[in-house]
Structures are given as C-alpha cells and as structure tokens.
C-alpha cells in the first residue's frame, strides 16, 4: 500500500532532536474532518481485560488501551507523525545539546480531576512512585533512567538522565508521562489523573465508564461519557460493532480492516505499527555463519508475507527505523530464492521458530516455514503462551523466534534490540561499532549527524542480520462512520488517540 523506508525514519528521528531543542508547541496529528457535536455517549470495545486502572499496571501503557489511559491520565507528550512526539499535557520539553538534561514546562493552571493543582512537585512524586519496585510499576525501568529531578518552580523542572537519551520524549507519552496524584484517589482508590474524563464506574475485567471531567483545565471533552468494554475475543468485538452494540473497537485483525472498508457504516482508523521480525539466537551454532543468515533473509519474500498475512494492509520493513519516515534504501538482502537455496541446501539446516500463540503470529510463522522449506530448510513452529513468551526470549530458550512489537514506533527501538546490553536484545548480538554508534546517536540532538549514524546502524544490522525484518501490520480502530474527531492516524507510528476530541456528527 505505502512503503516507507529508513530515510524518512531517519529524517523523523532527526526531527525528534530538532523538536526537542526547540520549544515544542504544535499539537498532535489530528485532522478531524467534521467537528463533533457536544454531548452523547460512546461505547468502545478494548481487546484486553484490566484488573485495575492504576497506571502502574503495564496494561494501561499498551497501545490498545491508550485510548482509555489518555482519557483519564493525559500524558505529558503525545505521538505525532513519523515517530516524533509533541506536547500533550506539557507546554514544552526541551533538551540540552547532550540529551542528558531535559527541561519540562507545564502550562499554568493544570489541575487533577479534584481541582487540586498539578505542579512539577506532582510530576516528581509520580515518577518517584513508579521508580519504587513496591509500586509494581511496568515503568520502573524507565524511571530508573532518571538520575535526579530538579524543580525550578511550579511549572518548570529539569530531568537529569543517567545516560543521554535523545528519545526521552517518547517515554513521557506512556506511563512515565501519565501524571497521577500521590495524595488523592478516586472513589475506587486509584490515584487521580488530570485527563478530560474521570472514572464513574469500574468493574474489574469487564467495563469502565468515564464521564467528562468538570474540573478539566483544558478544552472540555465533546462526549458526556464513554463506556469501555473489555472484550478479548476479536470476532465478538467486530460482530458487536456490526450489530451496533458498540461504536468503536480496537483490532489488529487484518480481515476485519478489509471487511470494514467495504461497509459504508464503518470507518477505519489504522496504521502499520506492529512490526514483526524473526530473531536468530546467535548463541546457537546453527546461526553463527553470517552467510547462512544472509541466505535465510534471501529466502523470505517479505512482499508475499505482507500479501498473505496482512492481506496487503501492511508494509515491509528492513530496519528498526522503517516506520519513522519515507524512503531511503537500506542495503538489506533482497528476496532471491535461488541464491538462498545454494547456501541453505548445502547447509542442511533445520530449526524451530518460537512464536507467541496468537492466530496472526502462527499464520506468519507458517508462511515463513513454507518459504524456508522451499529453500531447503526444515522448520518447526513452537507456539508459546503469551505470558511465558517474554521469559522464553529473555532466557534465550529458542533457536529462532518471531517478535511482534510496537517498540519501533520511535527511534529508541533500534537501541532496545541492537545494543549489546539492551533489554530487548534477545539474539545475543554484540557489535562494538553498533554500540558506539547508538550511544553517539542517543547523545545527539543534531539532526544530520544523528541521521547518518542511524543509517549506518541500519546498514550494519542488514549486514550482520541478528534479526530478519518482516513486515509492519495494521493496528488501530474501526468505528461507526457517524463518529467525528477521530484523528488521522495514517502517519502515526504509535496509535494513541485522545478521546476528548471524539464525538458524534450532527444528524
């Protein structure tokens, strides 16, 4: 459909730095075609069950749930086109030249939903709470990247980082930036937020109803209330949407996007954000020869994977920065079955692909198995249940593994998988040159030099091939065509919608 390559990624990555240096004042990419009317209710179906609404729970930072999290805990930063970030609740976020000291400025008059002021003291207390392991926060690791916080006044503070991080803004678009009160809670015992909605009803694992926050410091929400229903079954969500039982659903099921596009009563709001890769365990002797890894890459027809698994709705990717912008060629091995056969048939290779057990992942793994089989490789698929999949990867208890993730929504994703000590480096890849380039890029807010470094990293990864790049599949929302104000998601790399902008069109 539309293919974006690394150059835009790098331009976008560069933009992050530029934006970070300049006082950020633009608003997120929202191109509402029609203005929504005031009032009304909305029912949204989420794809997972929430046992709590406390932001410490990692579920609230996951892409499908951000529409709810944003309603209650408007994050400091918001995603914009091409993997950049602009202020959300914040007024600005600026870095020094080393990307080690970040100055946050809050607008005047921001309040929590009980009307109490949200100041820089609140931000500091919130981050200290997340850093405490007893909070069981999924953002504890991110909070640990901050070495100290210095408060200048009620609206200005400085974050000093343990190490330079030019992508620090991205952290403030999720849990770290969803500021909650450490002194006041709502009627359910959850720390108060400063979003445009407040919790009215909550049944754990079933539903949440939020109503307009009458003390909201910004533009009030259009809708009176939103009910979020937790519906893990994808078919049931879509059927509920078709029957009018719900108005907006989260989905990553490609066939549902395709079906919705043919239905005039529905509108699709999605973007290719779920990147799939095939990780090769470099500690396994089967993959120690780069010639074999190159042949494996040549044996995989990524266009065919996109056509079969994503029904053409996604894009192919060839680097960690592919989502971030427009076309620049990375020297990634092209599909060449004959060349692959010459190497792989001689190698007599057989291995297993460990994959999470979602239907789409298994389908993709099956497509890979067929393609690699054509090149003379014997592949077995090992499905692993979601909760133990992360531990399996962390313990490197796999030969090859399929990883589907949204961490490549900004430039920090490259570091997470390619740095030798990074938390998502499951392949055991270690290249001093790449480590150095990534460290230098993290410390740079200078666009051209950072762009050049990240291009070099991409090319080095395409040469060393610790992981084989596949596709980015669509994820997002399908809703009633009568909804207005749903932002244009097509340029976004992280689907994060602020529901305060959504409402119904006038009849």
């Amino acid at each position, binding site marked *: 459909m539309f293919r974006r390559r690394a150059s835009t990624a790098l331009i976008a990555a560069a933009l992050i730095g530029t934006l970070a240096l300049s006082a950020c004042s633009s608003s997120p990419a929202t191109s509402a075609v029609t203005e929504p009317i005031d009032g009304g209710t909305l029912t949204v179906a989420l794809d997972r069950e929430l*046992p709590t609404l406390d932001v410490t729970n990692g579920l609230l930072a996951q892409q499908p749930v951000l529409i709810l999290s944003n309603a209650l805990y408007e994050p400091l930063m918001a995603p914009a086109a091409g993997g950049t970030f602009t202020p959300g609740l914040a007024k600005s976020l600026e870095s020094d030249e080393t990307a080690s000291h970040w100055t946050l400025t809050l607008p005047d008059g921001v309040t929590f939903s009980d009307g109490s002021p949200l100041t820089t003291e609140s931000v500091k207390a919130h981050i200290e709470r997340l850093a405490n392991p007893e909070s069981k926060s999924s*953002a*504890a690791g991110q909070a640990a990247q901050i070495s100290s916080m210095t408060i200048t006044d009620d609206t200005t503070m400085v974050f000093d980082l343990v190490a330079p991080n030019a992508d620090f803004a991205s952290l403030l678009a999720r849990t770290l930036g969803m500021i909650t009160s450490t002194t006041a809670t709502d009627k359910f015992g959850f720390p108060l937020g400063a979003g445009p909605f407040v919790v009215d009803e909550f049944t754990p694992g079933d539903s949440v109803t939020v109503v307009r926050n009458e003390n909201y410091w910004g533009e009030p929400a259009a809708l009176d209330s939103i009910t979020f229903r937790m519906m893990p079954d994808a078919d049931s969500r879509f059927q509920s949407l078709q029957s009018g*039982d719900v108005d907006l659903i989260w989905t990553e099921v490609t066939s549902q996007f395709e079906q919705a596009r043919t239905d005039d009563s529905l509108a699709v709001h999605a973007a290719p954000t779920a990147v799939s890769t095939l990780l090769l365990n470099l500690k396994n002797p089967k993959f120690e020869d780069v010639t074999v890894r190159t042949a494996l890459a040549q044996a995989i027809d990524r266009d065919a994977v996109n056509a079969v698994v994503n029904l053409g709705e996604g894009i192919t990717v060839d680097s960690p920065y592919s989502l971030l912008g427009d076309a620049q060629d990375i020297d990634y091995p092209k599909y060449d079955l004959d060349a692959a056969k010459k190497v792989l048939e001689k190698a007599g290779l057989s291995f297993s692909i460990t994959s999470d057990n979602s239907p789409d992942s298994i389908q993709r793994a099956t497509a890979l198995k067929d393609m690699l089989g054509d090149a003379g490789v014997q592949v077995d698929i090992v499905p692993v249940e979601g909760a133990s999949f992360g531990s399996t990867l962390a313990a490197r208890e796999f030969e090859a593994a399929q990883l589907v993730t949204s961490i490549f929504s900004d430039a920090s994703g490259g570091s997470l998988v390619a740095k030798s000590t990074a938390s998502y480096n499951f392949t055991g890849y270690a290249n001093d040159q790449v480590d150095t380039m990534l460290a230098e890029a993290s410390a740079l807010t200078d666009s051209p030099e950072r762009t050049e470094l990240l291009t070099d990293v991409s090319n080095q990864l395409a040469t060393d091939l610790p992981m084989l790049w596949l596709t980015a599949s669509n994820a997002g929302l399908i809703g009633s065509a009568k909804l207005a104000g749903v932002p244009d998601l097509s340029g976004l790399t992280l689907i994060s919608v602020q529901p305060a902008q959504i409402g119904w069109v006038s009849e």
Partner: protein
Amino acid sequence: MTFAWLPRAGRSLLVLIVIAALTCQLAIVLPGDPALVLLGQESTEAQRAALRHTLGLDQNAVERFVTFVGGVFTGDWGTSFTSGRPVLTEILSRVPATAELVILSQIVALAVTIPLALHSARNVGGRLDRLVSTGTFLLLAVPSFVVGILVIQLFAVQLGWLPASGYTPFTENPLDNLARMVMPVLTLGIAEGAVYLRALRGAAIESLRAPYAYASIVRGASDRQLLWWRILRPSSSTLLALVGISLAVSLGGTLLVESLFAIPGLGRLTVSALGARDLPVIQGVVLFAAMIVVLFGIITDIVISRIDPRSNRGIV
C-alpha cells in the same frame, strides 16, 4: 449412621489439601516470571529481585503452602498481584455471572432435552428419533464457539433482535440482563443438551424394555403417564450424574462462552490471571473450582440416591 458422612468428608478434605499443595507449586512449574510480567522487559534484575521478595516468590514450597492454607482457613486467600484486591473478593465478584450463565443453560438444556429424549426413546427409529439423533450428532460435532459466532451473526448482526455481547447484573437491570443472557445460555445449553439427550435417550430405551414398563402399558397408561411417571425417574441416574459433573466443572469457568459474549465470569478471571502470572488469583481460582467440584459431587450423590434408591443397593 449419624456419622456416615465422615469418611466422605475426610476424603474431600484430603482432595482439597492435595490440590492446595499442588497449586502452591505453580510458582515453580509455570513458565514465565511474574516479576518480569509486572515490571516489563525494561526493568533491571535488581528491581525484579526486589519485587519477587515483596511478592513472596522467593519462599520455598513448604512456606508457600503453609501461608496459603493458613490464609484460606482464616479467610485470607491472598492479594492479587495485578489489582491489589483480595483474591476472595476477586473470585466472589465473578461468581454471579458464571453461576447465572451455568444455571440458566442447565435449565434450558434440561427443558429441551427431557421431553425430546423420552419421546425419541418411545419411538425408536421414528421420524422424531431420526431427527433428534442427527441433530444431536451435528450439535456434538460443532464446537460451541462456532455455535456462538453463528448465533451472534444471526440474532444480533442480521436480525438485530438481541445485544451481541456484554453483561448487566440482574439486580441492575433485569430485562437487559436476560436479553444479554439469551445467546450465551443457548450456546452453552445446546452443547450440554446434546450430551444429556444422548444419555437420557439410551437410559429411557433400557427402562422401556423393563417389566414395569410393560405392566404400565398393559394397565392402559397413556404415553405421557408412562414416560413422565414410570420411565423418567429410573432413567435419570446417568443424566443427574452428568448434570452434576457439568455444573461443577462449568462453575469453575466457562471460558469460551464467557470470552465470546464478554461475560465477566470465573473463566475469564482465570485466563487473565494466567496471562499476568497472578499466582495468588490462579491458586485461589483452582482451589475454589476444586471446592465446587467436591461439593457438587456430594450433592449429586445425595440427589441420585434419593431419586433412585436402587443406586444405594448397587442394583444400578
């Protein structure tokens, strides 16, 4: 005689203790680190170790067993890792939805099954019997989630008669509750009814061959009198045993139907707890389900012995 229930109670308690001991091994047996699931991939090992200590995951199996069983006896089933709420509260909050779904589906299944099975048995090889036999085989062959999807497509999407999914507590809005329960109850009831129908039909055919059935016919009993007063009771042992097992197992959670129709029951609680490696909730749900199975096993035995005294004498 007064204390005849004691051995049974003792065996039941032993079963529950064994299950409690086994569930305490989940922290070792289940793959996946709860601390990693909670803190995320970007957490440090030091942070995960601190959390493991806070959650008691570094206790040995004996310590965990003593803590868990001691807690159960004092009403403290532990605290959910993810919600921070007491486990018993989590479980009990999910019981009404599952109980309503299971009980209504049993009522529907029995209401449809009993007359069909009896009349089918009375006319073996007849048109109704052939239709019923084919229908039950078809229903047994089709998985309940497929039935559920088809039912939603027909009644919610195409006809728009019923809401597609969701749950409203009966006390909050009885009409909406019943409207939302129709399709899940049908889906579950159909699957169970097919099994009951096969069992009751077979038992009724046997009963109809018994001398007392001939005697009733000779005395001029109508079909209705024969089937409902002479055949149903002696044919019910297998059906009651099946209903007892089904009730017990279903109350532990009817996952597929709960997921498909977005009903916040015990099945969904179990799955989400497994996904989050919420060990206290997993332990609690397993023990709760075991208690239900034991309890319904006892109740079923009592009911069968009352309805069919032959079972006490080893005749059937």
